[in-house]
């Protein structure tokens, strides 16, 4: 028995040694795999280059026709009129206003929901509520747009008589609702990554849940929470369909949230109007606005990264 085993084993060793010599070619082929995979990985860089190049080259043409300063300081946007004006401020106003409204809804509710999920909810409740929130996050924005336009606006008009049928308030609120799951989930991640030991330290001193949350967990997770807010804003800035459907296309430079306002994204939809026609200044303005939008959201994303990296506590 032992003898057989010995012999068998000897042959395993030999076979392995033999196979390994034959495997040299295989090894060479394997060395090509990372190169191929790297090519795939570089596609993402190519995408970025594509975006920047696409936006930049046409934006460049736009600024040859419309002075840079006029674009960024103009409060009137009349792209199609006989005497067109290309001030981007009305669009920035619409974008900023709707995003702020959204954040006023999403930040407190999202954060409190995150606190509930991370600190209070039993695993059973969490098991139900988290996927349900994910469902909320998975609702397409066009559906939210429909909801804002056909339900939230009429509902709000019951309470706010001056509210127009298309206005910035209702899509702002609905965008906020849309962003809640994102803020809740990112903040919850940040809070649950605060080590248990830190919480235990505080509980061990007789602190209540609220005190542990307020004095230990939130300060420790602050960078992640702030980052989730910034990403939320960025998401709101980039949101298109809700505002397109529910806020109309008035290029209003106003602080009145009961009015119709146009965001940068809705402007892009309006101008492309199903397909943009090449050549005109209006056509180029589309790219200038898209570039502004892109830079805006990029800065937000970088800020979020910076915040969560720079101010992350070293536990």
């Amino acid at each position, binding site marked *: 028995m032992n003898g057989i085993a010995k012999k068998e084993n000897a042959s395993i060793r030999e076979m392995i040694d033999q196979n390994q010599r034959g495997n040299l070619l295989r090894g060479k082929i394997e060395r090509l795999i990372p190169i191929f995979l790297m090519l795939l990985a570089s596609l993402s860089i190519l995408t970025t280059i594509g975006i920047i190049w696409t936006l930049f080259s046409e934006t460049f043409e736009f600024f040859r026709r419309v002075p840079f300063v006029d674009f960024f300081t103009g409060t009137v946007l009349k792209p199609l009129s006989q005497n067109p004006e290309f001030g981007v401020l009305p669009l920035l106003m619409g974008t900023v206003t709707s995003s702020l409204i959204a954040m006023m809804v999403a930040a407190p509710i999202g954060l409190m929901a995150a606190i509930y999920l991370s600190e209070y909810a*039993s*695993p059973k409740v969490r098991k139900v509520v988290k996927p349900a929130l994910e469902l909320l996050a998975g609702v397409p924005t066009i559906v939210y747009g429909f909801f804002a336009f056909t339900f939230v606006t009429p509902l709000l008009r019951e309470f706010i008589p001056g509210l127009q049928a298309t206005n910035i308030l209702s899509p702002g609120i609905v965008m906020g609702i849309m962003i809640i799951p994102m803020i809740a989930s990112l903040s919850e991640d940040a809070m649950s990554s605060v*080590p*248990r*030991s*830190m*919480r*235990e*330290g*505080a*509980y*061990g*001193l*007789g*602190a*209540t849940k609220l*005190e542990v949350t307020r*004095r*230990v967990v939130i*300060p*420790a997770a602050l960078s992640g929470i702030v980052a989730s807010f910034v990403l939320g804003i960025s998401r709101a800035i980039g949101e298109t369909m809700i505002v397109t459907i529910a806020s109309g296309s008035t290029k209003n430079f106003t602080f009145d949230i009961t009015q119709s306002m146009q965001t940068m994204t809705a402007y892009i939809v309006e101008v492309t109007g199903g397909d943009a026609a090449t050549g005109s200044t209006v056509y180029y303005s589309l790219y200038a606005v898209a570039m502004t939008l892109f830079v805006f959201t990029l800065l937000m994303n970088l800020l979020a990264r910076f915040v969560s990296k720079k101010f992350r*506590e*070293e*536990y």
Partner: protein
Amino acid sequence: MTLLHERIKEKPLTIVRNESWAKPIYETNGLNLWYGTSHALKNIELAINEREVTAIIGPSGCGKSTFLKTLNRMVETATDVSISGNVTFKGNNILGKAMPVEILRSKVGMVFQKPNPFPKSIYENVAFGPKVHGIRNKAMLDNIVEESLKKAALWDEVKDRLHKSAYGLSGGQQQRLCIARCLAIDPEVILMDEPTSALDPVSTHKIEELIRSIKNDVTIAIVTHNMQQASRISDRTAFFLNGEVIEEDRTTTIFNNPSDKLTDDYINGRFG
């Protein structure tokens, strides 16, 4: 031996009187604990005496930490925990609703295996407990912080950088800071879970010294995997295995004359 036993049987009153300092502050009765369906503590019957050091030993995963955390109900912060039986602290069953955990924990401090200071200054770490319990007076807080750090033998090392981050301290200093943080709420019991296992010889020595110096004021229950440490610092030792107490006795007895084969095996490193 037999004689001794008989004498004890005859004179229980005398013994209690003799060892009157050994009054149990904690007693558990048929304590069972489950994480989900896994039975982590099985029918634990154990007393922890006031102003003694009780060591809890046993191989990894036997339930030492779980038991310790049951004593201040910290175990309940884990998910899906169920408990049956009684744990009395100074005669009150702490598992009932009668006593809010926050009050219990203000009387029972805890020190963990890995030092876990808050990401705040040294001062704020020590002042955290008193602040939570409503002490706002600055002078009083200053005083508590100083006293606690002194008791934890850390004052001299940190007095010049009280308002620097606690993360700048070495591992051993952090652990003493955590002990100071405990002492700041003037607890009656301190539970320690392998407080020196991540520390170097010098720090270990300091903490053992510290334990000796405070044990006249505070009851201490300490989990350790270092049997020599248990024998050096504890008065009584309980040996856990698979969620059960296999043996519990005076430390000298456990180490020199254990009555259970398993205890003997473990102490002599035949497993674990």
